[in-house]
């Protein structure tokens, strides 16, 4: 495997910058604990609470599970609630008291950790792809944003059944993320909408993905002035919202490409399934359909650490609140259709204790 990764190193990287000893091995990840009582079907999304050591796991088995995760990565199930159909997205409220989820039953649900009760708070006309709690408006009112395949972005006040505001999207929503005052929605046909949450009812900027292929994921970095976008064609783009910054700092790079047979001169390209930013350092990790993980530093344009293919596609990743634990889901992401799904593919989440070399931003090269 290390030879495979060694060759992969030549095909992925920030524009040919020199690489330090950034190659990880399977052994490094072998001891990562797995989830206790994992879901019965593929994991679709995972999210850590910003206030406590809780992890919510959305799954295609129509359930959202909430686990308590110890600093060593040991997990214990604490709650579970149902949707009528597979769940596609989950997110914690900023105060850590609620978990939101949305799924193929077109419903947006919120689970209250206090009362241990789930409640439907919103309804779309098609599947709900993404949910995010945001602090909107001048008074930072906590509201829930949900985007779906009905080409709608709804804002929900949790007390009324009707959306407080709605934005029509150009296409079906594929991914959404928020940080500080920035809310970014990526849709089909490579559209990206940036919304300034001080005025949540309007689209601040309509962008196109800097990548040529279908958008798979967007993720905002902690500073909240831009986002990373991942495409199905093993490529990741760093895009700033501000025009002048975009002109100077935007870039994209190849990742999640494997050369199974170096002599054949062939490269297999995999989708970038997930991008997660470290909450403090601002470094990030990309996970792909090849089942590998790579840690990057966008500011120094440097690859910090790469891990080889772990034998299973990774559909979702998340850092915990202090960035000490990196969770990555392992289950089939449907990237090769029905026929490639089989019972041997696990449906689990593993917890990796992050090391400084993986997440610590390098001093900027002068």
């Amino acid at each position, binding site marked *: 495997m290390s030879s495979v990764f060694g060759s992969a190193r030549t*095909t992925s990287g920030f524009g040919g910058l020199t690489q330090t000893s950034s190659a990880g091995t399977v052994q490094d990840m072998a001891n990562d604990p797995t989830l206790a009582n994992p879901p019965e079907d*593929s994991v*679709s999304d995972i999210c850590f609470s910003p206030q406590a050591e809780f992890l919510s796991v959305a799954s*295609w088995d129509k359930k959202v599970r909430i686990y308590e995760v110890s600093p060593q990565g040991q997990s214990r199930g604490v709650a579970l609630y*149902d949707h*009528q*159909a*597979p769940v*596609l997205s989950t997110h914690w409220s900023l105060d850590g008291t609620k978990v939101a989820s949305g799924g*193929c*039953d*077109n*419903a947006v649900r919120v689970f209250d950790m206090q009362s241990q009760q789930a*409640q*439907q*708070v919103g*309804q779309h006309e*098609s*599947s709900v*792809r993404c949910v995010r709690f945001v602090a909107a408006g001048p008074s930072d009112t906590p509201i829930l944003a949900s985007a779906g*395949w009905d080409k709608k972005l709804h804002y929900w006040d949790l007390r009324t*059944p009707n959306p407080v505001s709605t934005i029509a999207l150009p296409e*079906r929503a*594929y991914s959404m993320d928020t940080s500080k005052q920035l809310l970014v929605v990526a849709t*089909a*046909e490579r559209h990206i909408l940036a919304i300034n949450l001080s005025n949540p009812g309007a689209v601040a900027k309509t962008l196109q993905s800097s990548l*040529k*292929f*279908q958008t*798979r994921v967007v993720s905002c970095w902690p500073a909240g002035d831009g986002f990373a976008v991942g495409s*199905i*064609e*093993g490529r990741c783009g760093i895009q700033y919202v501000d025009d002048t910054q975009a002109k100077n700092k935007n870039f994209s790079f190849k990742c999640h*490409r494997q*050369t199974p047979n170096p002599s*054949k*001169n*062939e*490269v*297999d*390209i*995999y*989708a970038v399934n997930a991008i997660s930013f470290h909450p403090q350092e601002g470094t990030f990790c990309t996970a792909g*359909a*090849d089942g590998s993980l790579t840690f990057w530093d966008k500011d120094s344009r440097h690859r910090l650490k790469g891990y080889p293919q772990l034998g299973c596609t990774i559909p979702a990743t998340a850092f915990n609140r202090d960035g000490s634990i990196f969770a990555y889901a392992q289950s089939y*992401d*449907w*990237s*090769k*259709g*029905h026929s490639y799904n089989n019972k041997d593919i696990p449906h689990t989440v593993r917890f990796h204790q992050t090391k400084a070399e993986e997440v610590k931003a390098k001093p900027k090269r002068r």
Partner: protein
Amino acid sequence: MSAPVEFAAFEHAKENIEPTREGRSAASLAAVFGNNSSDAEPERQEFEQRIKDSDLDDDPLQIWLDYINWTKDRYPQGATSQSNLVPLLERATAKFVNVPHYKNDVRYVRTWMTYVKYADTPREVFTHLASLGIGSQLALYYEDYASWLETNGYKNKANEVYQAGLDNNAHPVERLQRRYHQFCERCAANPPDPSESTSPAFPTVRPALSSKFGGALASGGAGGATEPATAAPRKKKLSVFVDEEIPDTSASSGPGYLGTNAVRRKENVMQATPWAGETMPSSSALKPAHPKLTVFREVQVPKSDKKNERISIDMDLLYDGGIEFCLEEVYAKSRGLYGKKYNARPATPKAKTTTIMVKDSSPTGPRPATPTMTLHTKGAMDDIYDMFNQPLGGQKHDTKQQNDDDNDDDDDDDDDIKDDSDLDNESDQGMHSSY
């Protein structure tokens, strides 16, 4: 005797010297290619002047011959645009084409034979001469014609030409006979191709057309020549438009006129016009019949710069029917969940009225007192399907809501339409007030 000519004087130009049967004078070559060669233009002017004055001469042909010979010597390269040899030959031959006493003058016929070498359609020139009777008494004509036919593979026709020459007692008969014997020997050694076309060497002209060709045939017939009446030049068969303002000179028109190379090719010469503002005519056949046809767009495959790159994703699933789908959509579709409607909206306060809403423009007169139960609206159908599609172990929340629905059954189905369609309260109100 002058000093022998240095070969080096024209060594550098020897590839450009057209060989002739009789050879060339080294002195004249040295004069032409030498360093101190004089300008040809004054001499040419002198010849032109002599030709102008030659009408009163006893033998005007001789001046032309001198002119031709001078051109040949002065321009050893042969027929070039500078030498003007071909137009000169055309002028010389056309000049005396109707002069009877030159018809069998060996010098005049030799001029024709020189012209044949440069003509683009030699055979037409030969038949043209036959039609005019030029050279019909000279072995030179028959020998050259037969030789040209033989070289071009028409051995039967060459034989015919020799026979015609011998029948005419063309002078010198002995030489013609000798040539004919040599030709027969060559034919015996190398028999003619049986597939050679059988058209006669001197094509006959149908009498019905004789009036069209006028004098050429008339003179041919009156001359009583034993050779058959010959065809007029092929170009004459087509009525070629000639600009009227071109003055007809006596030598360059009429039945005996073969036409110069330039005249024969005039259809192929484009008139020089300024290019500015010109539009290229485009063929209408190239225009697509249905330009509004939707163009098939193939799924974009990344350009392979150096390595063979393969996307490890089933692109057929992602771009099913040309529409982009994400992996979750593909998965949802495979489980039959995509686009499925769920009627699990949290209970909203229902309208207090029990009226059904009918469009005001409805043509039915008085409405039925009881609402009809078979309203085939999409929302109603979805509701009915959803009742059957409820999972058995459905959530309490949903079954509760279902019970709610059942309990207030004084509402009819149309209430659920209100649920599905996003009618807000205001429009609801409007409907009722208008009722």
